[in-house]
């Protein structure tokens, strides 16, 4: 952010003011925060509405239909294309029947279409993303055995730089040795998957030995949530660091204070 100009500097001051207004909520709820909040609500609604008008209504409907009419004489497929847009618009207009309670039942058609579409697309996506690959990743031999060929293949695959590859090659023990660290880790992983899965098994009460096993699953879940918490602290702090850098570097920069 070097080149500023009047509007640029004004923008930095305005955003700095909004930043301070928003932070003031931490002290207590106050009119400045309310102002920033309500402005943001309005501006974001305006932004998304403008995007909807422009990207959907204009770009997906008006432009192709206008262009399509020029082709209707030479290519009948253009009529089909225009028809698709009109059907889409008709469905969209049916959504607006909600403004009139007497015919609001019409809005079910587009809603039913949207929901059905989302369901049909969603089912394979979830399986592809969450079920099969994760089974694939779990179904590995629990014992990990060093083989020079496998390790070197990995290095070729990763395209390591030569020094690192040489260093790693030195570390490979003779073929056929059990890699204890990895083996134990894989066993832990496997038990973790099974026990955490059993916690979400609803057909059996959590009692006795099985109850203890699901308890182990809860521990795994908690470790996972703890890890997420730790990582999220990192993320949030990073964002705050971003705002502080804006205030310290950009805003103070417009006043001639340069910290860097």
């Amino acid at each position: 952010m070097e080149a500023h100009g009047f509007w640029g500097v004004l923008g930095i001051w305005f955003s700095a003011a909004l930043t301070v207004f928003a932070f003031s909520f931490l002290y207590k709820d106050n009119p400045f925060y309310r102002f920033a909040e309500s402005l943001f609500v309005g501006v974001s609604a305006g932004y998304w509405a403008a995007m909807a008008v422009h990207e959907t209504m204009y770009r997906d409907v008006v432009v192709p239909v206008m262009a399509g009419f020029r082709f209707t004489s030479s290519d009948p497929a253009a009529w089909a294309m225009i028809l698709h847009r009109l059907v889409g618009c008709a469905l969209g207009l049916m959504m607006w029947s909600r403004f009139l309670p007497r015919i609001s039942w019409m809005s079910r058609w587009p809603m039913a279409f949207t929901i059905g579409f989302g369901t049909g697309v969603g089912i394979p996506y979830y399986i592809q993303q969450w079920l099969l690959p994760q089974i694939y990743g779990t179904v590995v031999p629990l014992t990990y055995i060093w083989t020079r060929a496998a390790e070197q293949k990995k290095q070729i695959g990763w395209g390591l730089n030569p020094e690192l590859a040489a260093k790693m090659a030195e570390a490979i023990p003779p073929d056929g040795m059990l890699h204890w660290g990895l083996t134990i880790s894989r066993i832990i992983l496997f038990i973790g998957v099974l026990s955490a899965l059993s916690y979400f098994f609803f057909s059996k009460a959590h009692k006795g030995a099985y109850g203890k096993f699901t308890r182990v699953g809860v521990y795994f879940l908690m470790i996972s949530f703890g890890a997420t918490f730790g990582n999220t602290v990192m993320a949030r702090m990073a964002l705050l660091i971003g705002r502080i850098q804006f205030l310290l570097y950009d805003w103070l920069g417009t006043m001639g204070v340069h910290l860097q």
Partner: protein
Amino acid sequence: MQQPRKGFWYSALRIDRRYIFMLVFVSLTVPFLFPGMRVPVEVQNPARQVYDFVDGLNEGDGVLVAFEYSPSTAPELTPMATCVARQCLKKGVRVYALSSAPEGPPIAAEVFRRVAGDYGRTEGEDYVNLGYKPGGVQAIVLGLAQNVSSVFPTDYVGRAVADIPAMRHFKKLSDLKLCVALSASTVAETWMGLASARFGVPVATGVTGVMVANFYAYLDTGQLVGLLGGMKGAAEYERLIAENVDPERGYWFATRGMASQSASHVLIVLFVLFGNLAMIMSGRGQRRRRR
């Protein structure tokens, strides 16, 4: 039953949270008053894998960087983009940037402006900013797999793709050697699911810290070739760049933030410990039911 409602520990728990906010702000701001401070960063495997993969590419290969985030998460993700661009452009690997979010292309332009001049790379020859396309990332990836110019007829500044020299080497997705998806949402998963699982182009992701823990599951199955997690991951990458690629300019934003990051983490850990200690001392442990 009634616990004593006074004493140091009791009042410590009832402390006004504004003091906590104040401490956080101070712990983050003070390290910036000492700009010369540089915290050593230990590099972990997931970041090294990204570095190594890019390192193994040859001059003239193509790498796609998807800027799927808005400026609100830029502190974490932009340093990653800068590092990837630095490593690629130094080597002569071509970089293509695109986005499915309208906020992405200005960030990409800023990254290229910052990096390209350092290695004498020019827009159009060595890197291209393709801009953004509405309609969702799924439609974009499916379109790219068929034909780039059908999705992006022009680049960000409106030049026709057919006139851009670098685009001769990127006609469809499979021409690329790597996709780097930088995202603060599930878009990274979509890139991974489509580009890697469906079209066989390796995908590395850079994600915000919130999502890191879940992405380790994908790293293990080989769905990802590498993972950059949050500002720390970016700082790790910056260190690799600074040590191996460009000693002059490697350290940048993320490394500068690491002192603040460390201070704030320690502060939070102290908060947790102190809060628990206060709970034990004031005997309020059984107040709330927990699962």
